[in-house]
Protein backbone atom coordinates (compact mmCIF):
# COMPACT_ATOMS: atom_id res chain seq x y z
CA UNK A 1 0.00 0.00 0.00
CA UNK A 2 2.87 2.35 0.93
CA UNK A 3 4.45 1.65 -2.45
CA UNK A 4 1.15 2.26 -4.25
CA UNK A 5 0.65 5.54 -2.45
CA UNK A 6 4.24 6.65 -3.11
CA UNK A 7 3.92 5.86 -6.80
CA UNK A 8 0.59 7.61 -6.98
CA UNK A 9 1.98 10.58 -5.03
CA UNK A 10 4.98 10.95 -7.28
CA UNK A 11 2.86 10.71 -10.45
CA UNK A 12 0.39 13.20 -8.94
CA UNK A 13 3.17 15.69 -8.29
CA UNK A 14 4.29 15.35 -11.85
CA UNK A 15 0.79 15.84 -13.23
CA UNK A 16 -0.29 18.22 -10.51
CA UNK A 17 -3.49 16.23 -9.98
CA UNK A 18 -3.80 16.10 -6.17
CA UNK A 19 -7.47 15.06 -6.28
CA UNK A 20 -6.60 11.70 -7.80
CA UNK A 21 -4.10 10.92 -5.02
CA UNK A 22 -6.64 11.69 -2.28
CA UNK A 23 -9.27 9.51 -3.92
CA UNK A 24 -6.93 6.56 -4.13
CA UNK A 25 -5.86 7.03 -0.51
CA UNK A 26 -9.49 7.13 0.57
CA UNK A 27 -10.38 4.05 -1.43
CA UNK A 28 -7.43 2.10 -0.01
CA UNK A 29 -8.06 3.28 3.56
CA UNK A 30 -11.75 2.50 3.29
CA UNK A 31 -11.02 -0.93 1.78
CA UNK A 32 -8.70 -1.80 4.65
CA UNK A 33 -11.19 -0.57 7.24
CA UNK A 34 -13.96 -2.64 5.61
CA UNK A 35 -11.78 -5.76 5.54
CA UNK A 36 -10.75 -5.40 9.18
CA UNK A 37 -14.28 -4.68 10.30
CA UNK A 38 -15.58 -7.61 8.26
CA UNK A 39 -13.11 -9.96 9.91
CA UNK A 40 -14.08 -8.69 13.32
CA UNK A 41 -17.80 -8.99 12.70
CA UNK A 42 -17.25 -12.56 11.61
CA UNK A 43 -15.67 -13.35 14.94
CA UNK A 44 -17.43 -11.29 17.55
CA UNK A 45 -21.10 -11.10 18.29
CA UNK A 46 -21.09 -7.77 20.00
CA UNK A 47 -21.50 -5.61 16.97
CA UNK A 48 -23.85 -3.03 18.47
CA UNK A 49 -21.30 -2.24 21.18
CA UNK A 50 -18.56 -2.11 18.58
CA UNK A 51 -20.59 0.25 16.42
CA UNK A 52 -21.27 2.38 19.44
CA UNK A 53 -17.55 2.54 20.22
CA UNK A 54 -16.80 3.43 16.62
CA UNK A 55 -19.60 5.94 16.76
CA UNK A 56 -18.25 7.47 19.98
CA UNK A 57 -14.92 8.04 18.30
CA UNK A 58 -16.39 9.39 15.12
CA UNK A 59 -19.02 11.46 16.95
CA UNK A 60 -16.38 14.00 17.83
CA UNK A 61 -16.00 14.73 14.15
CA UNK A 62 -19.34 13.83 12.57
CA UNK A 63 -21.94 13.53 15.33
CA UNK A 64 -25.01 13.84 13.11
CA UNK A 65 -24.22 11.11 10.65
CA UNK A 66 -23.42 8.50 13.30
CA UNK A 67 -26.56 9.20 15.26
CA UNK A 68 -28.56 8.46 12.15
CA UNK A 69 -26.86 5.11 11.55
CA UNK A 70 -26.35 3.61 15.05
CA UNK A 71 -29.60 2.62 16.76
CA UNK A 72 -30.15 3.24 20.47
CA UNK A 73 -30.69 0.42 23.02
CA UNK A 74 -34.51 0.60 22.98
CA UNK A 75 -34.60 0.33 19.21
CA UNK A 76 -32.26 -2.70 19.32
CA UNK A 77 -34.55 -4.62 21.68
CA UNK A 78 -37.60 -3.90 19.53
CA UNK A 79 -35.86 -4.89 16.32
CA UNK A 80 -34.49 -8.11 17.83
CA UNK A 81 -38.01 -9.21 18.55
CA UNK A 82 -39.05 -8.56 14.95
CA UNK A 83 -36.43 -10.73 13.23
CA UNK A 84 -34.07 -13.68 13.81
CA UNK A 85 -30.85 -13.19 15.71
CA UNK A 86 -28.62 -13.99 12.70
CA UNK A 87 -30.42 -11.65 10.32
CA UNK A 88 -30.42 -8.96 12.96
CA UNK A 89 -26.71 -9.39 13.53
CA UNK A 90 -25.94 -9.26 9.80
CA UNK A 91 -27.99 -6.13 9.33
CA UNK A 92 -26.28 -4.39 12.24
CA UNK A 93 -22.88 -5.50 10.94
CA UNK A 94 -23.75 -3.98 7.58
CA UNK A 95 -24.48 -0.66 9.26
CA UNK A 96 -20.88 -0.63 10.49
CA UNK A 97 -19.76 -0.80 6.87
CA UNK A 98 -21.99 2.13 6.05
CA UNK A 99 -20.31 4.11 8.86
CA UNK A 100 -16.91 3.38 7.36
CA UNK A 101 -18.12 4.48 3.92
CA UNK A 102 -19.46 7.67 5.37
CA UNK A 103 -16.19 8.48 7.15
CA UNK A 104 -14.08 7.82 4.05
CA UNK A 105 -16.66 9.15 1.62
CA UNK A 106 -16.58 5.89 -0.32
CA UNK A 107 -19.18 3.39 -1.54
CA UNK A 108 -17.80 -0.06 -0.67
CA UNK A 109 -20.41 -1.20 1.89
CA UNK A 110 -22.40 -2.92 -0.87
CA UNK A 111 -19.56 -5.44 -1.22
CA UNK A 112 -20.11 -6.58 2.36
CA UNK A 113 -23.79 -7.41 2.40
CA UNK A 114 -24.55 -11.06 3.28
CA UNK A 115 -25.50 -11.76 -0.36
CA UNK A 116 -22.37 -10.12 -1.77
CA UNK A 117 -20.17 -12.04 0.63
CA UNK A 118 -21.86 -15.33 -0.23
CA UNK A 119 -21.25 -14.75 -3.95
CA UNK A 120 -17.69 -13.48 -3.55
CA UNK A 121 -15.55 -15.27 -6.18
CA UNK A 122 -12.70 -15.37 -3.65
CA UNK A 123 -14.67 -18.07 -1.80
CA UNK A 124 -13.65 -20.45 -4.56
CA UNK A 125 -9.99 -20.08 -3.71
CA UNK A 126 -8.23 -22.00 -0.97
CA UNK A 127 -5.64 -20.00 0.80
CA UNK A 128 -3.79 -20.83 3.94
CA UNK A 129 -0.52 -20.78 5.73
CA UNK A 130 1.74 -23.81 5.76
CA UNK A 131 2.47 -24.95 9.29
CA UNK A 132 5.56 -23.59 10.99
CA UNK A 133 8.13 -26.18 12.02
CA UNK A 134 6.79 -27.89 15.11
CA UNK A 135 3.24 -26.73 14.54
CA UNK A 136 0.38 -29.17 14.30
CA UNK A 137 -2.70 -29.42 12.15
CA UNK A 138 -4.66 -27.63 14.87
CA UNK A 139 -2.83 -24.39 14.13
CA UNK A 140 -3.56 -24.75 10.47
CA UNK A 141 -7.22 -25.03 11.33
CA UNK A 142 -7.08 -21.68 13.08
CA UNK A 143 -5.79 -20.08 9.88
CA UNK A 144 -8.78 -21.34 7.93
CA UNK A 145 -11.49 -18.80 7.16
CA UNK A 146 -14.38 -21.21 7.23
CA UNK A 147 -14.84 -24.68 8.67
CA UNK A 148 -14.85 -26.36 5.28
CA UNK A 149 -11.72 -24.52 4.24
CA UNK A 150 -10.13 -25.31 7.57
CA UNK A 151 -10.60 -29.03 6.90
CA UNK A 152 -8.73 -28.67 3.64
CA UNK A 153 -5.95 -26.80 5.44
CA UNK A 154 -5.74 -29.49 8.06
CA UNK A 155 -5.34 -32.13 5.39
CA UNK A 156 -2.72 -30.05 3.60
CA UNK A 157 -0.98 -29.43 6.91
CA UNK A 158 -0.88 -33.17 7.58
CA UNK A 159 0.83 -33.79 4.28
CA UNK A 160 3.36 -31.04 4.98
CA UNK A 161 3.84 -32.43 8.48
CA UNK A 162 4.62 -35.82 7.07
CA UNK A 163 7.03 -34.37 4.57
CA UNK A 164 8.88 -32.53 7.29
CA UNK A 165 8.81 -35.52 9.71
CA UNK A 166 7.17 -33.27 12.25
CA UNK A 167 5.38 -35.30 14.88
CA UNK A 168 7.62 -38.32 14.70
CA UNK A 169 9.28 -37.30 17.94
CA UNK A 170 6.03 -37.40 19.86
CA UNK A 171 6.17 -39.95 22.61
CA UNK A 172 3.11 -42.17 22.76
CA UNK A 173 2.49 -43.44 26.31
CA UNK A 174 2.88 -47.23 26.52
CA UNK A 175 -0.64 -47.68 27.86
CA UNK A 176 -2.07 -45.89 24.82
CA UNK A 177 0.13 -47.48 22.19
CA UNK A 178 -1.53 -49.92 19.82
CA UNK A 179 1.90 -50.94 18.52
CA UNK A 180 3.10 -51.92 21.98
CA UNK A 181 -0.18 -53.70 22.63
CA UNK A 182 0.29 -55.66 19.41
CA UNK A 183 3.90 -56.55 20.31
CA UNK A 184 2.78 -57.90 23.69
CA UNK A 185 -0.10 -59.81 22.14
CA UNK A 186 2.17 -61.38 19.52
CA UNK A 187 4.88 -61.96 22.17
CA UNK A 188 7.44 -60.67 19.70
CA UNK A 189 10.04 -57.95 20.27
CA UNK A 190 7.89 -56.43 23.02
CA UNK A 191 10.88 -55.13 25.00
CA UNK A 192 12.60 -53.83 21.89
CA UNK A 193 9.43 -52.04 20.82
CA UNK A 194 9.17 -50.51 24.29
CA UNK A 195 12.78 -49.34 24.06
CA UNK A 196 12.32 -47.89 20.55
CA UNK A 197 9.18 -46.05 21.63
CA UNK A 198 11.24 -43.90 23.96
CA UNK A 199 13.85 -43.06 21.32
CA UNK A 200 13.81 -39.91 19.18
CA UNK A 201 12.72 -40.40 15.57
CA UNK A 202 16.18 -39.86 14.15
CA UNK A 203 17.55 -42.76 16.22
CA UNK A 204 14.81 -45.07 15.06
CA UNK A 205 15.40 -43.95 11.50
CA UNK A 206 19.08 -44.68 11.97
CA UNK A 207 18.21 -48.20 13.10
CA UNK A 208 16.03 -48.61 10.02
CA UNK A 209 18.87 -47.49 7.76
CA UNK A 210 21.29 -49.87 9.47
CA UNK A 211 18.87 -52.80 9.11
CA UNK A 212 18.32 -51.95 5.44
CA UNK A 213 22.07 -52.02 4.80
CA UNK A 214 22.31 -55.39 6.55
CA UNK A 215 19.51 -56.68 4.35
CA UNK A 216 21.24 -55.43 1.21
CA UNK A 217 24.52 -57.07 2.27
CA UNK A 218 22.79 -60.37 2.98
CA UNK A 219 20.96 -60.33 -0.34
CA UNK A 220 24.33 -59.83 -1.95
CA UNK A 221 25.65 -62.87 -0.04
CA UNK A 222 22.71 -64.98 -1.21
CA UNK A 223 23.27 -63.87 -4.79
CA UNK A 224 26.98 -64.52 -4.62
CA UNK A 225 27.82 -66.83 -1.68
CA UNK A 226 31.37 -67.48 -2.86
CA UNK A 227 32.24 -63.86 -2.12
CA UNK A 228 31.12 -64.20 1.50
CA UNK A 229 33.82 -66.72 2.35
CA UNK A 230 37.48 -66.13 2.96
CA UNK A 231 39.00 -69.31 4.41
CA UNK A 232 36.57 -71.78 2.88
CA UNK A 233 35.63 -72.44 -0.72
CA UNK A 234 31.85 -72.34 -1.04
CA UNK A 235 31.94 -75.08 -3.65
CA UNK A 236 33.77 -77.37 -1.24
CA UNK A 237 30.89 -77.28 1.24
CA UNK A 238 28.27 -80.01 1.15
CA UNK A 239 24.82 -79.17 -0.27
CA UNK A 240 23.31 -79.52 3.23
CA UNK A 241 25.83 -77.06 4.62
CA UNK A 242 25.17 -74.63 1.77
CA UNK A 243 21.40 -74.96 2.10
CA UNK A 244 21.61 -74.36 5.86
CA UNK A 245 23.68 -71.21 5.35
CA UNK A 246 21.32 -69.88 2.68
CA UNK A 247 18.38 -70.51 4.99
CA UNK A 248 20.21 -68.68 7.75
CA UNK A 249 20.82 -65.58 5.62
CA UNK A 250 17.18 -65.53 4.56
CA UNK A 251 16.07 -65.83 8.16
CA UNK A 252 18.31 -62.92 9.20
CA UNK A 253 16.79 -60.79 6.43
CA UNK A 254 13.33 -61.69 7.69
CA UNK A 255 14.33 -60.68 11.21
CA UNK A 256 15.57 -57.25 10.10
CA UNK A 257 12.53 -56.70 7.92
CA UNK A 258 10.38 -57.43 10.93
CA UNK A 259 12.31 -54.93 13.02
CA UNK A 260 11.96 -52.29 10.32
CA UNK A 261 8.23 -52.91 10.26
CA UNK A 262 7.96 -52.39 14.01
CA UNK A 263 10.01 -49.20 13.89
CA UNK A 264 7.95 -47.82 11.04
CA UNK A 265 4.77 -48.62 12.91
CA UNK A 266 6.10 -46.72 15.93
CA UNK A 267 6.87 -43.67 13.79
CA UNK A 268 3.50 -43.89 12.06
CA UNK A 269 1.69 -44.14 15.36
CA UNK A 270 3.47 -41.02 16.61
CA UNK A 271 2.37 -39.13 13.49
CA UNK A 272 -1.26 -39.92 14.15
CA UNK A 273 -1.17 -39.62 17.92
CA UNK A 274 -3.19 -36.76 19.41
CA UNK A 275 -4.87 -35.68 16.18
Amino acid at each position, binding site marked *: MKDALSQEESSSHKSGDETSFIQVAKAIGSGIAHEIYDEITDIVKIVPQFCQEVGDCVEKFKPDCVKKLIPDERAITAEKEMEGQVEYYERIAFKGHQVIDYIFSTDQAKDFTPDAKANDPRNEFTYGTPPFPGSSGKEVIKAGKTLSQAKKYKKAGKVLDRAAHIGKDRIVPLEKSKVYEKAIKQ*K*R*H*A*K*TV*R*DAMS*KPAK*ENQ*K*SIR*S*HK*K*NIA*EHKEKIANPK*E*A*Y*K*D*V*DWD*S*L*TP*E*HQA*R*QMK*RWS*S*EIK*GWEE*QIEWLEEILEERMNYGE
Partner: protein
Amino acid sequence: MENSKLRKYIFATIALIKKQAFQAKEKVGSLVGAPTTYNTGLLMGYAHILKDFRNYTIALWIDRKDLGLADIEPEADLLGMKSNPEADRRIKDMIEPLTEEKVEGYIYDLMTILKETAMEEQAQLDDPATSDDNGFDRGYLMAYYQIFSTMQDQAVLFGIDQKACNLSIIDPDRDLLPSLLKEKK
Protein backbone atom coordinates in the same frame (compact mmCIF):
# COMPACT_ATOMS: atom_id res chain seq x y z
CA MET B 1 25.15 -51.23 36.00
CA GLU B 2 28.77 -52.43 35.99
CA ASN B 3 28.22 -54.54 39.11
CA SER B 4 24.65 -55.51 38.34
CA LYS B 5 23.85 -59.18 38.91
CA LEU B 6 22.06 -59.37 35.57
CA ARG B 7 24.92 -57.82 33.65
CA LYS B 8 27.43 -60.17 35.31
CA TYR B 9 25.16 -63.09 34.48
CA ILE B 10 24.83 -62.31 30.77
CA PHE B 11 28.54 -61.47 30.41
CA ALA B 12 29.59 -64.75 32.07
CA THR B 13 27.03 -66.78 30.13
CA ILE B 14 28.09 -65.38 26.78
CA ALA B 15 31.73 -66.09 27.66
CA LEU B 16 30.79 -69.69 28.39
CA ILE B 17 28.84 -70.05 25.13
CA LYS B 18 31.78 -68.64 23.16
CA LYS B 19 34.04 -71.22 24.82
CA GLN B 20 31.66 -74.03 23.89
CA ALA B 21 31.54 -72.74 20.31
CA PHE B 22 35.31 -72.76 19.91
CA GLN B 23 35.42 -76.26 21.41
CA ALA B 24 32.93 -77.33 18.74
CA LYS B 25 35.18 -75.78 16.10
CA GLU B 26 38.18 -77.73 17.40
CA LYS B 27 36.26 -80.96 16.94
CA VAL B 28 35.50 -80.15 13.31
CA GLY B 29 38.90 -78.78 12.40
CA SER B 30 38.81 -77.34 8.89
CA LEU B 31 35.48 -77.02 7.17
CA VAL B 32 37.10 -77.41 3.77
CA GLY B 33 35.80 -80.64 2.39
CA ALA B 34 34.37 -81.54 5.80
CA PRO B 35 31.46 -83.98 5.61
CA THR B 36 28.11 -82.93 6.95
CA THR B 37 28.18 -84.54 10.34
CA TYR B 38 26.80 -84.01 13.80
CA ASN B 39 29.86 -81.89 14.66
CA THR B 40 29.58 -79.58 11.65
CA GLY B 41 25.90 -79.13 12.45
CA LEU B 42 26.77 -78.31 16.06
CA LEU B 43 29.40 -75.79 14.97
CA MET B 44 27.00 -74.06 12.57
CA GLY B 45 24.38 -73.98 15.30
CA TYR B 46 26.73 -72.22 17.69
CA ALA B 47 27.84 -69.76 15.01
CA HIS B 48 24.30 -68.85 14.09
CA ILE B 49 23.09 -68.50 17.66
CA LEU B 50 26.04 -66.30 18.58
CA LYS B 51 25.23 -64.22 15.50
CA ASP B 52 21.71 -63.77 16.93
CA PHE B 53 23.25 -62.65 20.22
CA ARG B 54 25.27 -60.04 18.31
CA ASN B 55 22.48 -58.96 15.98
CA TYR B 56 20.08 -58.33 18.80
CA THR B 57 22.41 -55.84 20.50
CA ILE B 58 21.67 -53.46 17.60
CA ALA B 59 17.93 -53.59 18.23
CA LEU B 60 18.42 -52.24 21.75
CA TRP B 61 21.45 -50.05 21.06
CA ILE B 62 23.63 -52.12 23.40
CA ASP B 63 27.38 -51.80 23.17
CA ARG B 64 28.69 -55.25 22.26
CA LYS B 65 31.69 -54.65 24.50
CA ASP B 66 29.36 -54.53 27.50
CA LEU B 67 28.24 -58.08 26.83
CA GLY B 68 31.58 -59.50 25.67
CA LEU B 69 30.44 -59.77 22.06
CA ALA B 70 32.83 -57.29 20.47
CA ASP B 71 35.71 -59.73 20.19
CA ILE B 72 33.90 -62.33 18.13
CA GLU B 73 32.52 -62.42 14.60
CA PRO B 74 30.85 -65.83 14.72
CA GLU B 75 30.58 -66.44 10.98
CA ALA B 76 34.13 -65.28 10.32
CA ASP B 77 35.74 -66.89 13.38
CA LEU B 78 33.81 -70.15 13.32
CA LEU B 79 32.70 -70.72 9.72
CA GLY B 80 35.53 -69.17 7.70
CA MET B 81 33.59 -66.26 6.22
CA LYS B 82 34.97 -62.80 5.52
CA SER B 83 35.08 -60.32 8.34
CA ASN B 84 32.75 -57.32 7.97
CA PRO B 85 34.32 -54.29 9.70
CA GLU B 86 32.02 -51.99 7.72
CA ALA B 87 28.99 -53.40 9.58
CA ASP B 88 30.69 -52.63 12.92
CA ARG B 89 31.57 -49.09 11.83
CA ARG B 90 27.96 -48.54 10.85
CA ILE B 91 26.72 -49.15 14.37
CA LYS B 92 29.58 -47.64 16.34
CA ASP B 93 27.50 -44.65 17.45
CA MET B 94 24.31 -46.67 17.91
CA ILE B 95 25.05 -47.17 21.56
CA GLU B 96 23.26 -46.19 24.74
CA PRO B 97 24.33 -46.69 28.36
CA LEU B 98 23.58 -50.19 29.54
CA THR B 99 20.73 -50.37 32.02
CA GLU B 100 19.13 -53.22 33.95
CA GLU B 101 16.01 -52.76 31.85
CA LYS B 102 17.98 -53.05 28.60
CA VAL B 103 19.71 -56.28 29.66
CA GLU B 104 16.43 -57.75 30.81
CA GLY B 105 14.75 -56.73 27.54
CA TYR B 106 17.65 -58.11 25.53
CA ILE B 107 17.48 -61.54 27.18
CA TYR B 108 13.67 -61.51 27.09
CA ASP B 109 13.28 -60.90 23.35
CA LEU B 110 16.29 -62.99 22.39
CA MET B 111 14.86 -66.01 24.21
CA THR B 112 11.66 -65.73 22.14
CA ILE B 113 13.61 -65.67 18.89
CA LEU B 114 15.89 -68.55 19.88
CA LYS B 115 12.97 -70.65 21.03
CA GLU B 116 11.08 -70.10 17.76
CA THR B 117 14.04 -71.23 15.69
CA ALA B 118 14.71 -74.19 17.97
CA MET B 119 11.11 -75.38 17.71
CA GLU B 120 11.22 -75.07 13.90
CA GLU B 121 14.39 -77.15 13.83
CA GLN B 122 12.87 -79.67 16.18
CA ALA B 123 9.77 -80.03 13.99
CA GLN B 124 12.00 -80.52 10.95
CA LEU B 125 13.99 -83.16 12.76
CA ASP B 126 10.83 -85.01 13.76
CA ASP B 127 9.53 -84.98 10.20
CA PRO B 128 10.82 -88.09 8.39
CA ALA B 129 10.42 -86.34 5.04
CA THR B 130 12.86 -83.56 5.89
CA SER B 131 15.09 -85.25 8.43
CA ASP B 132 18.70 -86.06 7.58
CA ASP B 133 20.42 -89.31 8.23
CA ASN B 134 23.92 -88.00 8.87
CA GLY B 135 23.41 -86.20 12.19
CA PHE B 136 23.88 -82.71 10.74
CA ASP B 137 20.42 -81.46 11.79
CA ARG B 138 20.72 -83.09 15.20
CA GLY B 139 24.04 -81.37 15.75
CA TYR B 140 22.45 -78.06 14.79
CA LEU B 141 19.56 -78.51 17.23
CA MET B 142 21.96 -79.72 19.91
CA ALA B 143 23.61 -76.28 19.87
CA TYR B 144 20.25 -74.79 20.86
CA TYR B 145 19.75 -77.41 23.54
CA GLN B 146 23.16 -76.70 25.05
CA ILE B 147 22.72 -72.92 24.94
CA PHE B 148 19.30 -72.99 26.62
CA SER B 149 20.64 -75.34 29.25
CA THR B 150 23.68 -73.14 29.85
CA MET B 151 21.58 -69.99 30.15
CA GLN B 152 19.20 -71.59 32.64
CA ASP B 153 21.96 -73.24 34.71
CA GLN B 154 23.84 -69.94 34.90
CA ALA B 155 20.65 -68.13 35.93
CA VAL B 156 20.34 -70.46 38.91
CA LEU B 157 23.98 -69.80 39.83
CA PHE B 158 23.57 -66.02 39.63
CA GLY B 159 20.15 -66.01 41.31
CA ILE B 160 18.36 -64.52 38.30
CA ASP B 161 14.56 -64.43 38.13
CA GLN B 162 14.09 -66.72 35.11
CA LYS B 163 10.47 -65.79 34.53
CA ALA B 164 11.16 -62.05 34.45
CA CYS B 165 13.85 -62.61 31.81
CA ASN B 166 11.78 -65.09 29.81
CA LEU B 167 14.39 -67.78 30.47
CA SER B 168 11.70 -70.24 31.46
CA ILE B 169 10.01 -69.96 28.05
CA ILE B 170 11.43 -73.35 27.12
CA ASP B 171 12.35 -76.52 28.93
CA PRO B 172 15.14 -77.97 26.77
CA ASP B 173 14.97 -81.41 28.38
CA ARG B 174 11.25 -81.68 27.78
CA ASP B 175 10.97 -79.82 24.46
CA LEU B 176 14.16 -80.68 22.61
CA LEU B 177 15.87 -83.74 24.10
CA PRO B 178 13.35 -86.41 22.93
CA SER B 179 13.91 -85.36 19.31
CA LEU B 180 17.66 -85.36 19.78
CA LEU B 181 17.69 -88.86 21.24
CA LYS B 182 15.27 -90.34 18.74
CA GLU B 183 16.88 -93.11 16.71
CA LYS B 184 17.21 -92.44 13.00
CA LYS B 185 16.45 -95.07 10.46
